[in-house]
């Protein structure tokens, strides 16, 4: 029992929460660029929070169900059609064998999550199904989805028709503020350079991908050209020799030798990864205390946000 990929769109990848605890053999995390939308997809479906879904970037993907089950799409506003009928996202819908599911190009945002009841069944590599193409690991043979791929999933007859109230759904803007905890080689950037970084707008470059979002704007000068290679955490803001910041994301290399000015909050990199090239980014400094507080607030708010249910 499967979902067949008719058209994969620009980039569609199987993802669970990500691969953790494997940095010591050089494996990165992978996982959803927007963990917030990913988590809601599985939550609305009553799935395990780590269930495997498809992350669709930019849109243009079509699938055919070969099984009776339920699907849900969250994230970027890619018009969702089932058998050519447009249906709301952030809601669980039944599909029957033979139905066609399509996600058109996004109106706003960049990453959407297509989940099925009980998730896609994928053999994990190193404890996770997350696809990292650079490492050729996870998903189906470590690669993006291609036309004809068959995604195994269960036949499911009953599932609550949960949906998230439209007022609770995120609005994806073309401008985000990314909070950054100064750290790492922060002291190697003069006060003037730090002020420049936090006071100017940057534009998302065409060369942004799952490894990192490259930004264009006023160059930031660092007193040193490189450092002894060291670990890089998700969200680290690297400043290479040309002074153009790179915010490192899920598929980043685990170690590197460029100076870093700080590290972005995961809540904000989720929004950053919803920007398309040309999107505008502002950076704001935040203390480790402030970051911890923001993270816990967002976590408890998400747990309290009610799911509504269609009774049909």
């Amino acid at each position, binding site marked *: 029992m499967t979902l067949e990929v008719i058209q994969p769109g620009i980039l569609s990848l199987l993802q669970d929460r990500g691969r953790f605890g494997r940095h010591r053999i*050089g494996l990165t995390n992978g996982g959803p660029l927007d963990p917030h939308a990913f988590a809601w997809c599985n939550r609305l479906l009553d799935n395990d929070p780590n269930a495997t879904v498809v992350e669709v970037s930019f849109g243009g993907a079509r699938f055919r169900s070969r099984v009776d089950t339920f699907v849900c799409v969250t994230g970027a506003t890619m018009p969702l059609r089932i058998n050519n009928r447009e249906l709301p996202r952030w809601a669980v819908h039944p599909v029957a064998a033979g139905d066609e599911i399509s996600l058109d190009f996004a109106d706003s945002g960049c990453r959407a999550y297509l989940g099925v009841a009980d998730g896609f069944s994928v053999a994990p590599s190193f404890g996770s199904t997350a696809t990292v193409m650079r490492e050729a690991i996870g998903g189906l043979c470590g690669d993006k989805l291609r036309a004809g791929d068959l995604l195994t999933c269960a036949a499911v007859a009953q599932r609550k028709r949960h949906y998230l109230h439209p007022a609770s759904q995120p609005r994806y803007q073309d401008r985000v503020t990314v909070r950054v905890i100064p*750290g790492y080689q922060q002291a190697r950037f003069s006060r003037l350079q730090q002020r420049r970084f936090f006071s100017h707008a940057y534009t998302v470059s065409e060369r942004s991908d799952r490894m990192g979002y490259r930004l264009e704007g006023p160059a930031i000068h660092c007193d040193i050209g490189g450092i*002894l290679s060291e*670990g890089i*955490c998700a969200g680290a803001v690297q400043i290479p020799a040309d002074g153009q910041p790179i915010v490192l994301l899920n598929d980043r*290399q685990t170690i590197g030798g460029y100076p870093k000015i700080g590290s972005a909050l*995961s809540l904000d990199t989720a929004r950053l990864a919803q920007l398309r090239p040309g999107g505008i980014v502002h950076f704001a400094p935040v203390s480790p205390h402030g970051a911890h507080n923001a993270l*816990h607030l967002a976590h408890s708010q998400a747990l309290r946000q009610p799911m509504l249910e269609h009774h049909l």
Partner: protein
Amino acid sequence: MELHSAGENALMLYLGDNASPAVAARVQAACKAVETALGDHLVDLVPSYASVLILYDPLLTDHLSVGHRVRRAVANLADVSDSQGRLVVLPVYYAPEAGADLEMLAQRAGLTPEQLIDLHAGTEYRVYAIGFAPGFAYLGQVDERIAAARLATPRLRVPRGAVAIADRQTAVYPAVSPGGWNLIGRCPTRMFDPTATPAMPVAVGDRVQFEPVDRARYLALGGEL
């Protein structure tokens, strides 16, 4: 010892400012101590030349508690002796057909290819870090006489098993990839095999010795040309 904030779920521990066996031993000892001190709160560790990136679960603990526990764990580490690590022997077929830059590198160093091979295989290396790609182990230090700058234009395709030098580091490419290091030979041992347990023959802190083998032996060990 310095401990810096590195993100909402990360602290960076600096244990020195250069790559040396003594610092590498401290990095190894610190990893073990931090693992014990943090238990389930620890998500991952990234040891490197002179630092350890400590990743914790920010929903279970916070930077203050982690910082406190790390400082205490590492303080007791002061007189750690140089832990020797395992010795892993890796066979290498050194030849122009296996290492495109071997002759050029020897010539630039004013050595014969045989002398370069003796220097490369006559040094015991330590695994300082693993990264760049799955299974890519940074080994140091290469004898000063054969240290070499990276290629001005990286190759688009370096074969799996390529043994290479960049600055005073050497490595075996775990998979086909682009690369700018100088190629001197090839190793038939798989440096990263997702189906094997463990997936890598070496870990950070291990020692590595290269053993020259001839063409026939290289092929018999599963090497490809």
